């Protein structure tokens, strides 16, 4: 019998080996997919037991805090819809967006730096807690931007950057939503065609229109092909390039285009003369136009501290996909690109960064929303250091463009942004979207002689830049400079 008993033991060993193998499979190989199963509420539940960090504005206003109920921490957003897209939401059912998502490791205290503190705290008997996040945004500026957008009544976005650091002072997107009512409003928010959940400042791609001439001008000046005084003569209000007609601005599709006569490049910039910039683009050529787009950071995701899927890349889009910058364009498309009417699509954040770079002597900074991370012991465990992202253009070019931008506000298309309190420099853009409607842009900075804040404003389905985007830019700039 001994031999059969031994064989029974060997059979048992096989059974136990199968158990060990399956155990290792479930706990090691399959563990990730089990953890990611949406029905596995472990992670969310675990995080709701953590006293999640508070999110503060630059003036220490609470933007997100906690309400303790039944041992679980629920999120509250005291300012309602003001910072919804930037701060995002943290919800047991719908997950996380915005900074709630990108800063989750700090907020829950699972980031390495916070773990150390938590370990020490546990030894001393204190409760585990997440770190607080202090932002660069200023609620006063944000409020001005949001109120102006809401009063205007059309969808749009405003981005305000600190010219020297790249810190985001305001980032508003209209329409917005109340994150405190997320679960109740979820279905409605998702059906709303105006997309209130969308962060238009970083996610929406718009045709830049004439605001793109900032980049065309930078290329024109730095290649040495043109100076602000370069002479042009506009006799017809249109030019034909390779058999295609490009018109100057027309009030309606059937109206006669404006005719500007003899003028300089600087005049053309102030009055946004399309025919002139079409010729500039034609002369500068596609390679240089694309090179300067890339110098300003197009074709790359802006390195901001929001979740990657909430930051769109600016650049030329074909059939909804970012095209390669090296795609060869025919002559007329290069001319169209120079006046911002080709398939180039940009985010308000990207255009604010272009303005910031010009205001900062050509040095484009990495934009950021998180000023510092402060752990539960009030120790600053991380402070964002302003960092150059790229040197877009030479300082000399920047100051030349600045002078041209001042003329836009003082005597050109940006008149609506003029203020007697501060000299604002800027560039407008009117991108036709059909039905006589435009997307109205204002991109600029102030004060012109000592730039501090850079701004990009876009208003969708607008009537004109003078009516829609420029006055908002002026209000917000004054608010950011403490002059309002």
């Amino acid at each position, binding site marked *: 019998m001994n031999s059969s008993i*031994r064989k029974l033991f060997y059979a048992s060993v096989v*059974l136990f080996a199968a158990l060990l193998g399956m155990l290792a499979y479930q*706990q090691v190989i399959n563990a990730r997919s089990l953890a990611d199963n949406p029905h596995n509420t*472990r992670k969310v539940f675990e995080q709701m037991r953590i006293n999640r960090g508070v999110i503060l504005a630059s003036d220490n206003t609470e933007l997100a805090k906690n309400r303790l109920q039944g041992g679980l921490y629920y999120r509250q957003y005291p300012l309602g819809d003001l910072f919804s897209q930037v701060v995002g939401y943290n919800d047991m059912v719908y997950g996380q967006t915005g900074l709630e998502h990108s800063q989750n490791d700090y907020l829950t205290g699972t980031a390495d730096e916070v773990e150390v503190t938590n370990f020490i705290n546990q030894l001393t008997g204190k409760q585990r807690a997440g770190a607080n996040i202090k932002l660069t945004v200023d609620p006063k500026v944000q409020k001005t931007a949001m109120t102006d957008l809401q009063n205007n009544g059309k969808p749009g976005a405003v981005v305000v950057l600190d010219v020297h650091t790249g810190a985001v002072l305001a980032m508003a997107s209209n329409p917005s939503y109340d994150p405190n009512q997320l679960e109740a409003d979820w279905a409605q928010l998702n059906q709303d065609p105006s997309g209130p959940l969308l962060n238009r400042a970083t996610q929406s791609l718009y045709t830049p229109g004439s605001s793109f001439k900032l980049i065309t001008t930078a290329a024109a000046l730095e290649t040495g092909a043109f100076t602000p005084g370069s002479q042009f003569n506009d006799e017809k209000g249109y030019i034909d390039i390779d058999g295609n007609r490009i018109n100057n601005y027309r009030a309606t599709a059937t109206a006669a285009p404006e005719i500007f006569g003899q003028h300089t490049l600087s005049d053309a910039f102030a009055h946004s003369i399309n025919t002139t910039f079409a010729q500039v683009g034609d002369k500068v050529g596609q390679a240089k136009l694309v090179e300067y787009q890339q110098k300003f950071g197009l074709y790359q995701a802006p390195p901001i501290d929001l979740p990657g899927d909430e930051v769109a890349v600016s650049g030329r889009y074909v059939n909804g996909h970012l095209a390669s910058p090296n795609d060869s364009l025919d002559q007329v498309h290069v001319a169209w690109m120079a006046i911002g009417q080709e398939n180039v699509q940009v985010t308000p954040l990207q255009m604010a960064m272009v303005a910031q770079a010009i205001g900062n002597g050509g040095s484009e900074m990495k934009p950021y929303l998180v000023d510092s991370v402060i752990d539960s012991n009030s120790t600053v465990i991380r402070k964002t250091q302003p960092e150059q992202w790229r040197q877009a253009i030479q300082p000399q070019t920047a100051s030349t463009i600045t002078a041209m931008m001042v003329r836009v506000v003082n005597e050109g298309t940006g008149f609506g942004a003029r203020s007697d309190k501060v000299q604002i420099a800027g560039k407008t853009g009117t991108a036709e979207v059909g039905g006589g409607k435009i997307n109205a842009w204002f991109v600029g900075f102030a004060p012109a002689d000592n730039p501090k804040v850079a701004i990009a404003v876009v208003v969708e389905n607008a009537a004109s830049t003078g009516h829609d985007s420029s006055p908002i830019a002026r209000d917000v700039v004054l608010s950011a400079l403490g002059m309002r």
Partner: protein
Amino acid sequence: MERRRELINFIPVVLLTVIGFSSVYAARSAQINSSSLTYGLLFIAIFLAVHVFLRLAAPHADPYLLPITGLLAAMGIMMIYRIDPSLAAAQATWLLVGVGLFAAIVVVLRDYRKLDDYIYILGLAGIALLVVTAIFGKDMNGSGVRLWLNLGGMWIQPGEFSKVLITIFLAGYLHSKRELLSTTTWRMGGVPMPPLKHLGPLLTVWGMSFGMLLLMNDLGPSLLLFGIFLAMLYAATDRLTYPAIGLVMMSGAGVFAYFTKAIVHLRVDVWLNPWTDIDNKGYQLAQSLFAIGDGGLFGTGLGKGYLLFRNGQEIIPALHTDFIFSAIAEELGLAGASAVIILFLLLCYRGFKIAVATDDGFSKLLAAGIAAGFALQTFFILGGVMKLIPLTGITLPFVSYGGSSIVSNFASIALLVLISNRTNSERLKAARASELAASLGRSA
């Protein structure tokens, strides 16, 4: 010698128990009070008392059996204590009853081979328990399985006891019929076949197991019973034909049950895909897998797993009984959970080793049957909660909560203790005798 080794083996058991209970208490001090820590101390006291008892009653018994079962029981009561301290009190009481029965068996059945004379009574008693349960059994926990019998206000699972009784019966029966069953009278396609009339017992046990399944919806114990029978039949005859025929018969019964019994159908479907109806039918298995996966290599730590809802209700139904291994896997990780599996393997190893070492056929078959029973029961329940095989509701010996389970399993250990004690003391006697003879020879 054996007892000193046993005492040394107890040291890690005591240490682990102390550490385990302390860490559960530390992690859940808000929910539980410190007086419940006494279960840990009570537990250690029980096993040290058993050790002293064995020094007197069975000094040559296998020195690994008790430390292994002690460690398993420690992990069980620790986990139960972590899930619900009030259940740990009941489990500690049952542990005392189990140890009491253990001691009683070791004293009363000192000459356990006398059981061989009463095997038909024992076997009938085992079957009677099953029949009574089939008729009067109650479904206590809404699992759809009628396992419980009310015995003077106390709920017991007779199936657990009939497992032990039927194992004893089979050991005696197969021992006496061994020669007959091993003869070859005819061949089927060259394969030697046993005489057809001796397939009777096989058919009987098969019918019984199948009946249990059909009448009581009791998937686990019926499979276990049949598995133990096949293992013992193979041990007795050394003929693979029996388990082969048996497996074919069981497969046939399984296919039939799949198409006729809703519970079998459900268990198989959930095993194949727990994700399609994850909130209802697949819920228990899916939650078990989530818990096991969450454990990772080293676990969340005792008391820190996601095992209970805020109101203290178990997230995985039957967590403290059939699914206790999922709780261990989550909180102690691959390291702790594989230790449990290896402990069971060691327990089986000791059982089979005792079977090989002992000299009479009845003892051999009894020890092998008990060892095979532990191996199969562990495989059925652990394979079930890990989605290796369809779930068959059955307890994890010594670890799961449940009086019937712990008491009956201690009875099995008592039998192994008796067999090994007799084998070792007789071997010692023989060695001394030959030593004496040798020294007499030298002096002469």
